[in-house]
Protein backbone atom coordinates (compact mmCIF):
# COMPACT_ATOMS: atom_id res chain seq x y z
CA UNK A 1 0.00 0.00 0.00
CA UNK A 2 2.84 2.40 -0.71
CA UNK A 3 3.29 4.17 -4.04
CA UNK A 4 6.00 2.91 -6.41
CA UNK A 5 9.04 5.09 -7.09
CA UNK A 6 8.54 7.96 -9.49
CA UNK A 7 10.25 11.15 -10.48
CA UNK A 8 8.31 14.11 -9.10
CA UNK A 9 8.03 17.16 -11.32
CA UNK A 10 6.65 20.39 -9.91
CA UNK A 11 6.15 22.88 -12.75
CA UNK A 12 5.61 26.52 -11.78
CA UNK A 13 3.83 27.61 -14.96
CA UNK A 14 1.52 26.17 -17.58
CA UNK A 15 4.29 26.47 -20.20
CA UNK A 16 6.62 24.48 -18.00
CA UNK A 17 3.96 21.83 -17.41
CA UNK A 18 3.27 21.53 -21.14
CA UNK A 19 6.99 21.27 -21.88
CA UNK A 20 7.34 18.42 -19.40
CA UNK A 21 4.36 16.66 -20.97
CA UNK A 22 5.73 17.24 -24.48
CA UNK A 23 8.93 15.49 -23.42
CA UNK A 24 7.70 12.79 -21.03
CA UNK A 25 3.91 12.70 -21.47
CA UNK A 26 3.78 9.05 -22.49
CA UNK A 27 5.51 8.01 -19.25
CA UNK A 28 3.87 10.60 -17.00
CA UNK A 29 0.72 10.94 -14.96
CA UNK A 30 -0.66 14.35 -14.09
CA UNK A 31 -1.41 14.89 -10.40
CA UNK A 32 -4.32 17.25 -9.73
CA UNK A 33 -6.20 16.62 -6.46
CA UNK A 34 -4.94 13.05 -6.24
CA UNK A 35 -8.17 11.62 -4.89
CA UNK A 36 -8.32 8.96 -7.62
CA UNK A 37 -4.69 8.84 -8.72
CA UNK A 38 -3.09 8.40 -5.29
CA UNK A 39 -5.21 5.32 -4.46
CA UNK A 40 -4.19 3.88 -7.83
CA UNK A 41 -0.56 4.61 -6.96
CA UNK A 42 -0.94 3.18 -3.46
CA UNK A 43 -2.35 -0.01 -4.98
CA UNK A 44 0.41 0.14 -7.63
CA UNK A 45 -2.19 -0.13 -10.36
CA UNK A 46 -0.34 2.69 -12.10
CA UNK A 47 3.44 3.05 -12.15
CA UNK A 48 4.29 6.28 -13.96
CA UNK A 49 7.96 7.19 -14.41
CA UNK A 50 7.04 10.85 -13.84
CA UNK A 51 4.40 12.45 -11.69
CA UNK A 52 3.65 15.97 -12.86
CA UNK A 53 2.08 17.87 -9.97
CA UNK A 54 -0.12 20.76 -11.13
CA UNK A 55 -0.72 22.15 -7.66
CA UNK A 56 1.80 24.98 -8.03
CA UNK A 57 0.81 25.99 -11.55
CA UNK A 58 -0.91 29.39 -11.30
CA UNK A 59 -3.98 30.23 -13.36
CA UNK A 60 -5.50 26.78 -13.64
CA UNK A 61 -8.22 27.33 -11.06
CA UNK A 62 -11.11 29.73 -10.82
CA UNK A 63 -14.69 30.05 -11.99
CA UNK A 64 -15.77 32.83 -14.33
CA UNK A 65 -18.54 33.80 -16.69
CA UNK A 66 -17.41 34.00 -20.30
CA UNK A 67 -20.22 35.06 -22.58
CA UNK A 68 -23.01 32.57 -22.15
CA UNK A 69 -20.73 30.03 -20.57
CA UNK A 70 -19.42 29.21 -17.16
CA UNK A 71 -15.70 28.47 -17.45
CA UNK A 72 -14.24 26.36 -14.67
CA UNK A 73 -10.49 25.99 -14.37
CA UNK A 74 -9.35 22.38 -14.24
CA UNK A 75 -7.62 22.78 -10.86
CA UNK A 76 -10.69 24.29 -9.19
CA UNK A 77 -11.32 22.22 -6.05
CA UNK A 78 -14.66 20.48 -6.07
CA UNK A 79 -15.51 22.03 -2.71
CA UNK A 80 -14.89 25.50 -4.16
CA UNK A 81 -17.24 24.80 -7.06
CA UNK A 82 -19.78 23.30 -4.64
CA UNK A 83 -19.90 26.46 -2.54
CA UNK A 84 -19.57 28.95 -5.43
CA UNK A 85 -22.56 31.32 -5.72
CA UNK A 86 -21.77 31.63 -9.44
CA UNK A 87 -22.13 27.87 -9.95
CA UNK A 88 -25.31 27.78 -7.86
CA UNK A 89 -26.83 30.67 -9.86
CA UNK A 90 -25.69 29.79 -13.35
CA UNK A 91 -25.21 26.06 -13.32
CA UNK A 92 -27.53 24.62 -10.65
CA UNK A 93 -27.11 21.13 -12.14
CA UNK A 94 -23.42 21.16 -11.24
CA UNK A 95 -24.15 22.67 -7.83
CA UNK A 96 -26.54 19.82 -7.08
CA UNK A 97 -24.16 17.12 -8.32
CA UNK A 98 -21.18 18.39 -6.31
CA UNK A 99 -22.16 17.28 -2.79
CA UNK A 100 -22.79 13.80 -4.19
CA UNK A 101 -19.09 13.38 -5.06
CA UNK A 102 -17.31 11.37 -2.36
CA UNK A 103 -17.12 13.16 0.98
CA UNK A 104 -16.16 16.66 2.01
CA UNK A 105 -12.57 15.59 2.76
CA UNK A 106 -12.34 14.28 -0.81
CA UNK A 107 -13.90 17.41 -2.32
CA UNK A 108 -11.52 19.66 -0.38
CA UNK A 109 -8.67 18.22 -2.49
CA UNK A 110 -10.39 16.74 -5.54
CA UNK A 111 -10.59 18.97 -8.59
CA UNK A 112 -13.17 19.51 -11.31
CA UNK A 113 -10.64 18.76 -14.05
CA UNK A 114 -9.27 15.73 -12.25
CA UNK A 115 -12.69 14.13 -12.03
CA UNK A 116 -13.35 14.78 -15.72
CA UNK A 117 -9.94 13.53 -16.86
CA UNK A 118 -10.23 10.41 -14.68
CA UNK A 119 -13.44 9.65 -16.61
CA UNK A 120 -14.96 7.14 -14.24
CA UNK A 121 -18.26 6.02 -15.82
CA UNK A 122 -19.91 6.44 -12.42
CA UNK A 123 -18.54 9.95 -11.96
CA UNK A 124 -20.95 12.84 -11.44
CA UNK A 125 -19.07 15.61 -13.25
CA UNK A 126 -18.69 13.76 -16.58
CA UNK A 127 -22.48 13.34 -16.63
CA UNK A 128 -23.08 17.00 -15.81
CA UNK A 129 -20.82 18.16 -18.63
CA UNK A 130 -22.38 15.61 -21.01
CA UNK A 131 -25.97 16.57 -20.17
CA UNK A 132 -25.16 20.26 -20.66
CA UNK A 133 -23.28 19.62 -23.87
CA UNK A 134 -20.26 21.42 -22.43
CA UNK A 135 -16.81 21.84 -23.82
CA UNK A 136 -13.44 20.52 -22.64
CA UNK A 137 -10.46 22.74 -23.36
CA UNK A 138 -7.13 20.95 -23.87
CA UNK A 139 -3.75 22.63 -24.18
CA UNK A 140 -0.42 21.37 -25.41
CA UNK A 141 2.71 22.82 -26.94
CA UNK A 142 0.99 22.20 -30.26
CA UNK A 143 -1.91 24.49 -29.37
CA UNK A 144 -5.45 24.26 -28.09
CA UNK A 145 -8.28 21.83 -28.80
CA UNK A 146 -11.89 22.11 -27.69
CA UNK A 147 -13.76 18.84 -27.48
CA UNK A 148 -17.39 17.97 -26.97
CA UNK A 149 -18.11 15.47 -24.19
CA UNK A 150 -18.79 12.84 -26.88
CA UNK A 151 -15.30 13.41 -28.29
CA UNK A 152 -13.63 13.71 -24.88
CA UNK A 153 -14.97 10.58 -23.14
CA UNK A 154 -13.71 7.62 -25.13
CA UNK A 155 -14.10 4.56 -22.92
CA UNK A 156 -13.85 3.35 -19.33
CA UNK A 157 -11.28 5.65 -17.60
CA UNK A 158 -10.14 6.75 -21.04
CA UNK A 159 -10.33 10.18 -22.63
CA UNK A 160 -9.15 11.70 -25.90
CA UNK A 161 -6.46 13.68 -24.05
CA UNK A 162 -3.15 12.95 -25.78
CA UNK A 163 -0.04 12.27 -23.66
CA UNK A 164 1.31 15.77 -24.31
CA UNK A 165 -2.03 17.47 -23.60
CA UNK A 166 -3.54 18.89 -20.46
CA UNK A 167 -7.20 19.53 -19.66
CA UNK A 168 -7.18 23.17 -18.58
CA UNK A 169 -10.83 24.18 -18.46
CA UNK A 170 -14.38 22.89 -18.60
CA UNK A 171 -17.01 25.15 -20.11
CA UNK A 172 -20.75 24.70 -19.71
CA UNK A 173 -23.58 26.87 -21.03
CA UNK A 174 -25.33 28.83 -18.30
CA UNK A 175 -28.89 27.72 -17.67
CA UNK A 176 -31.30 29.61 -19.97
CA UNK A 177 -34.47 31.20 -18.53
CA UNK A 178 -37.32 28.81 -17.68
CA UNK A 179 -34.88 25.95 -17.12
CA UNK A 180 -35.05 23.32 -14.43
CA UNK A 181 -32.32 20.81 -13.64
CA UNK A 182 -31.84 17.83 -11.35
CA UNK A 183 -29.11 15.37 -10.50
CA UNK A 184 -30.11 12.17 -8.71
CA UNK A 185 -28.22 8.99 -8.01
CA UNK A 186 -28.44 5.75 -6.12
CA UNK A 187 -25.42 4.34 -4.35
CA UNK A 188 -25.04 1.47 -1.92
CA UNK A 189 -23.70 3.78 0.76
CA UNK A 190 -23.66 7.57 0.88
CA UNK A 191 -20.44 8.85 -0.69
CA UNK A 192 -19.72 5.67 -2.64
CA UNK A 193 -19.53 5.72 -6.38
CA UNK A 194 -23.13 5.58 -7.52
CA UNK A 195 -24.62 2.51 -9.18
CA UNK A 196 -26.57 4.78 -11.51
CA UNK A 197 -26.96 8.56 -11.64
CA UNK A 198 -29.08 10.79 -13.85
CA UNK A 199 -28.45 14.42 -14.82
CA UNK A 200 -31.39 16.29 -16.34
CA UNK A 201 -31.85 19.73 -17.79
CA UNK A 202 -35.08 20.89 -19.40
CA UNK A 203 -36.31 24.24 -20.67
CA UNK A 204 -39.92 25.32 -21.16
CA UNK A 205 -41.35 27.95 -23.50
CA UNK A 206 -43.79 30.65 -22.41
CA UNK A 207 -46.73 28.29 -22.88
CA UNK A 208 -45.17 25.73 -20.56
CA UNK A 209 -44.26 23.36 -23.37
CA UNK A 210 -40.86 21.70 -23.19
CA UNK A 211 -38.56 23.13 -25.85
CA UNK A 212 -35.32 21.44 -24.84
CA UNK A 213 -34.47 18.41 -22.75
CA UNK A 214 -31.17 16.66 -22.21
CA UNK A 215 -30.19 13.71 -20.05
CA UNK A 216 -26.96 12.00 -19.14
CA UNK A 217 -26.73 8.76 -17.22
CA UNK A 218 -23.81 7.36 -15.23
CA UNK A 219 -23.01 3.75 -14.47
CA UNK A 220 -24.72 2.24 -17.50
CA UNK A 221 -21.89 2.23 -20.01
CA UNK A 222 -18.18 2.90 -20.41
CA UNK A 223 -18.81 6.66 -20.65
CA UNK A 224 -21.74 8.88 -19.61
CA UNK A 225 -24.68 7.80 -21.77
CA UNK A 226 -26.65 10.61 -23.45
CA UNK A 227 -29.98 9.21 -24.69
CA UNK A 228 -30.83 11.99 -27.14
CA UNK A 229 -33.75 10.25 -28.75
CA UNK A 230 -35.43 9.40 -25.45
CA UNK A 231 -34.89 12.92 -24.08
CA UNK A 232 -36.25 14.35 -27.34
CA UNK A 233 -39.57 12.64 -26.66
CA UNK A 234 -40.30 15.36 -24.10
CA UNK A 235 -39.74 18.20 -26.57
CA UNK A 236 -42.99 19.69 -27.83
CA UNK A 237 -45.11 18.35 -24.96
CA UNK A 238 -46.13 19.74 -21.60
CA UNK A 239 -44.36 18.13 -18.67
CA UNK A 240 -46.58 15.55 -17.00
CA UNK A 241 -46.11 12.30 -15.10
CA UNK A 242 -47.15 10.39 -18.23
CA UNK A 243 -44.63 12.24 -20.37
CA UNK A 244 -41.87 11.55 -17.83
CA UNK A 245 -42.79 7.89 -17.71
CA UNK A 246 -42.65 7.72 -21.48
CA UNK A 247 -39.12 9.15 -21.52
CA UNK A 248 -38.05 6.86 -18.67
CA UNK A 249 -39.33 3.79 -20.53
CA UNK A 250 -37.43 4.81 -23.64
CA UNK A 251 -34.27 5.46 -21.63
CA UNK A 252 -34.37 2.10 -19.89
CA UNK A 253 -35.18 0.35 -23.17
CA UNK A 254 -32.21 1.86 -24.97
CA UNK A 255 -29.60 0.91 -22.36
CA UNK A 256 -27.42 -2.19 -22.28
CA UNK A 257 -25.45 -1.88 -19.05
CA UNK A 258 -23.05 -4.59 -17.93
CA UNK A 259 -23.66 -6.59 -14.79
CA UNK A 260 -21.00 -6.47 -12.12
CA UNK A 261 -20.39 -7.25 -8.48
CA UNK A 262 -22.50 -4.29 -7.38
CA UNK A 263 -25.57 -4.53 -9.57
CA UNK A 264 -27.03 -6.61 -12.36
CA UNK A 265 -27.70 -5.22 -15.80
CA UNK A 266 -31.45 -5.40 -15.21
CA UNK A 267 -31.20 -3.55 -11.92
CA UNK A 268 -29.14 -0.78 -13.48
CA UNK A 269 -31.73 -0.41 -16.26
CA UNK A 270 -34.46 -0.31 -13.66
CA UNK A 271 -32.61 2.39 -11.68
CA UNK A 272 -31.97 4.43 -14.82
CA UNK A 273 -35.70 4.42 -15.61
CA UNK A 274 -36.83 5.26 -12.09
CA UNK A 275 -34.22 7.99 -11.62
CA UNK A 276 -35.01 9.48 -15.03
CA UNK A 277 -38.67 9.75 -14.13
CA UNK A 278 -37.96 11.29 -10.72
CA UNK A 279 -35.27 13.65 -11.99
CA UNK A 280 -37.49 14.91 -14.83
CA UNK A 281 -40.30 15.60 -12.35
CA UNK A 282 -37.93 17.38 -9.98
CA UNK A 283 -36.37 19.43 -12.80
CA UNK A 284 -39.80 20.42 -14.17
CA UNK A 285 -40.89 21.46 -10.69
CA UNK A 286 -37.91 23.76 -10.43
CA UNK A 287 -38.60 25.80 -13.57
CA UNK A 288 -39.14 29.41 -12.43
CA UNK A 289 -39.17 28.09 -8.91
CA UNK A 290 -36.93 27.17 -6.06
CA UNK A 291 -33.30 26.40 -6.57
CA UNK A 292 -32.17 22.90 -5.79
CA UNK A 293 -31.41 22.53 -2.12
CA UNK A 294 -27.88 21.16 -1.79
CA UNK A 295 -28.95 18.54 0.71
CA UNK A 296 -31.87 17.00 -1.19
CA UNK A 297 -31.44 13.29 -1.81
CA UNK A 298 -33.36 10.82 -3.90
Amino acid at each position, binding site marked *: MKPPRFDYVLPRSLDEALSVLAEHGDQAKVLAGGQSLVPLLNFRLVRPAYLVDLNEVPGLDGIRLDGGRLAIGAMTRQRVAETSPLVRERCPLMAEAMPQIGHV*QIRNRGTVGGSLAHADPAGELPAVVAALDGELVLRSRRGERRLTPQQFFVAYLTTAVEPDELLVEARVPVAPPRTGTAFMEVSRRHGDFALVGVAVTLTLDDAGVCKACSLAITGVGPTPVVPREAAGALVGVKPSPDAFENVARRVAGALTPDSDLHASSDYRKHLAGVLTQRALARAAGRVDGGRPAAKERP
Partner: protein
Amino acid sequence: MTERTIRVTVNGRTYEKTVEVRKTLADFLRDDLDLTGTHLGCEHGVCGACTIVLDGAAVRSCLMFAAQAHGRELQTVEGLADGDRLNPLQEAFRQHHGLQCGFCTPGFLMTLTCFLRECPNPTEAEVREAIAGNLCRCTGYKNIVAAALAAASTSTRS
Protein backbone atom coordinates in the same frame (compact mmCIF):
# COMPACT_ATOMS: atom_id res chain seq x y z
CA MET B 1 13.41 14.79 -8.32
CA THR B 2 13.00 11.81 -6.04
CA GLU B 3 13.58 13.72 -2.80
CA ARG B 4 12.41 17.12 -1.71
CA THR B 5 13.26 19.26 1.28
CA ILE B 6 10.09 20.64 2.78
CA ARG B 7 9.16 23.00 5.54
CA VAL B 8 5.81 22.41 7.19
CA THR B 9 4.11 23.75 10.26
CA VAL B 10 2.31 21.10 12.28
CA ASN B 11 0.34 22.12 15.37
CA GLY B 12 2.20 25.41 15.45
CA ARG B 13 5.68 23.91 15.27
CA THR B 14 7.76 24.22 12.09
CA TYR B 15 9.74 21.25 10.80
CA GLU B 16 12.24 21.07 7.96
CA LYS B 17 12.87 17.62 6.54
CA THR B 18 14.05 15.96 3.39
CA VAL B 19 11.53 13.37 2.22
CA GLU B 20 11.26 10.81 -0.51
CA VAL B 21 8.68 12.25 -2.91
CA ARG B 22 6.58 9.10 -2.90
CA LYS B 23 6.07 9.25 0.86
CA THR B 24 2.49 10.05 1.77
CA LEU B 25 1.77 12.87 4.16
CA ALA B 26 0.32 10.35 6.63
CA ASP B 27 3.53 8.29 6.67
CA PHE B 28 5.58 11.48 6.99
CA LEU B 29 3.60 12.57 10.06
CA ARG B 30 3.90 9.17 11.68
CA ASP B 31 7.41 8.07 10.70
CA ASP B 32 9.36 11.31 10.30
CA LEU B 33 7.66 13.49 12.90
CA ASP B 34 6.62 10.72 15.31
CA LEU B 35 3.10 12.13 15.34
CA THR B 36 1.46 8.72 15.47
CA GLY B 37 -1.94 10.04 16.51
CA THR B 38 -2.86 10.16 12.83
CA HIS B 39 -3.95 6.61 12.04
CA LEU B 40 -3.92 4.72 8.77
CA GLY B 41 -6.77 2.38 8.00
CA CYS B 42 -7.34 1.77 4.32
CA GLU B 43 -4.64 3.92 2.67
CA HIS B 44 -6.91 4.66 -0.26
CA GLY B 45 -9.18 7.40 0.94
CA VAL B 46 -12.19 5.42 2.11
CA CYS B 47 -12.00 5.07 5.89
CA GLY B 48 -11.16 8.61 7.01
CA ALA B 49 -8.88 7.53 9.89
CA CYS B 50 -5.99 9.63 8.53
CA THR B 51 -8.03 12.85 8.24
CA ILE B 52 -6.01 15.93 9.23
CA VAL B 53 -6.54 19.66 8.79
CA LEU B 54 -4.58 21.29 5.96
CA ASP B 55 -4.77 25.09 5.83
CA GLY B 56 -8.12 24.90 7.61
CA ALA B 57 -9.71 22.13 5.50
CA ALA B 58 -10.15 18.48 6.43
CA VAL B 59 -8.24 16.22 4.02
CA ARG B 60 -7.10 12.62 3.76
CA SER B 61 -3.41 12.55 4.61
CA CYS B 62 -3.03 9.18 2.85
CA LEU B 63 -4.01 10.79 -0.47
CA MET B 64 -1.35 13.50 -0.44
CA PHE B 65 2.39 13.35 -0.64
CA ALA B 66 4.46 14.95 2.09
CA ALA B 67 6.26 16.88 -0.65
CA GLN B 68 2.97 18.64 -1.39
CA ALA B 69 2.70 19.96 2.16
CA HIS B 70 5.66 22.29 1.72
CA GLY B 71 4.81 25.73 3.07
CA ARG B 72 1.48 24.57 4.45
CA GLU B 73 -0.02 24.66 7.90
CA LEU B 74 -1.28 21.38 9.32
CA GLN B 75 -3.19 20.39 12.39
CA THR B 76 -3.30 16.82 13.68
CA VAL B 77 -5.05 15.24 16.62
CA GLU B 78 -1.99 16.01 18.78
CA GLY B 79 -2.80 19.70 18.34
CA LEU B 80 -6.22 19.53 19.99
CA ALA B 81 -5.54 19.11 23.70
CA ASP B 82 -3.84 21.74 25.85
CA GLY B 83 -1.30 19.59 27.64
CA ASP B 84 -3.33 17.09 29.64
CA ARG B 85 -6.50 19.10 29.25
CA LEU B 86 -8.80 17.76 26.54
CA ASN B 87 -10.48 20.30 24.31
CA PRO B 88 -14.31 20.53 24.41
CA LEU B 89 -14.75 18.17 21.45
CA GLN B 90 -12.43 15.55 22.92
CA GLU B 91 -14.10 15.96 26.31
CA ALA B 92 -17.50 15.43 24.68
CA PHE B 93 -16.23 12.21 23.04
CA ARG B 94 -15.10 11.01 26.47
CA GLN B 95 -18.34 12.00 28.20
CA HIS B 96 -20.61 10.47 25.56
CA HIS B 97 -18.62 7.31 24.93
CA GLY B 98 -17.91 8.48 21.37
CA LEU B 99 -15.11 5.95 21.05
CA GLN B 100 -14.38 2.40 21.97
CA CYS B 101 -11.16 1.05 20.46
CA GLY B 102 -10.14 4.56 19.42
CA PHE B 103 -8.60 3.70 16.08
CA CYS B 104 -10.90 5.91 14.03
CA THR B 105 -11.15 8.66 16.65
CA PRO B 106 -8.39 11.00 15.42
CA GLY B 107 -10.05 11.14 11.99
CA PHE B 108 -13.46 11.87 13.48
CA LEU B 109 -12.03 14.57 15.72
CA MET B 110 -10.26 16.34 12.87
CA THR B 111 -13.27 16.06 10.55
CA LEU B 112 -15.53 17.46 13.26
CA THR B 113 -13.04 20.18 14.20
CA CYS B 114 -13.41 21.65 10.69
CA PHE B 115 -17.10 20.96 10.48
CA LEU B 116 -17.99 22.66 13.78
CA ARG B 117 -15.96 25.69 12.77
CA GLU B 118 -18.04 26.03 9.58
CA CYS B 119 -21.31 24.94 11.14
CA PRO B 120 -21.19 25.76 14.87
CA ASN B 121 -24.82 24.93 15.57
CA PRO B 122 -25.60 21.83 13.51
CA THR B 123 -28.62 19.57 13.40
CA GLU B 124 -28.23 15.86 13.91
CA ALA B 125 -28.69 15.29 10.18
CA GLU B 126 -25.91 17.74 9.41
CA VAL B 127 -23.57 15.99 11.84
CA ARG B 128 -24.35 12.63 10.25
CA GLU B 129 -23.65 14.07 6.79
CA ALA B 130 -20.39 15.61 8.03
CA ILE B 131 -19.04 12.34 9.41
CA ALA B 132 -20.22 10.22 6.47
CA GLY B 133 -16.64 10.02 5.24
CA ASN B 134 -15.33 8.44 8.42
CA LEU B 135 -15.80 4.79 9.32
CA CYS B 136 -16.18 3.49 12.87
CA ARG B 137 -16.67 -0.22 13.54
CA CYS B 138 -17.30 0.02 17.30
CA THR B 139 -19.79 2.68 18.23
CA GLY B 140 -22.51 2.46 15.60
CA TYR B 141 -22.01 6.25 15.30
CA LYS B 142 -24.82 7.10 17.72
CA ASN B 143 -22.49 8.23 20.48
CA ILE B 144 -20.20 10.04 18.06
CA VAL B 145 -23.18 12.07 16.87
CA ALA B 146 -24.19 12.74 20.47
CA ALA B 147 -20.65 13.87 21.29
CA ALA B 148 -20.53 16.22 18.30
CA LEU B 149 -23.87 17.78 19.21
CA ALA B 150 -22.80 18.14 22.83
CA ALA B 151 -19.51 19.78 21.79
CA ALA B 152 -21.43 22.19 19.55
CA SER B 153 -23.78 23.23 22.34
CA THR B 154 -20.86 23.63 24.77
CA SER B 155 -19.01 25.95 22.44
CA THR B 156 -22.06 27.99 21.42
CA ARG B 157 -22.86 28.48 25.13
CA SER B 158 -19.39 29.68 25.99
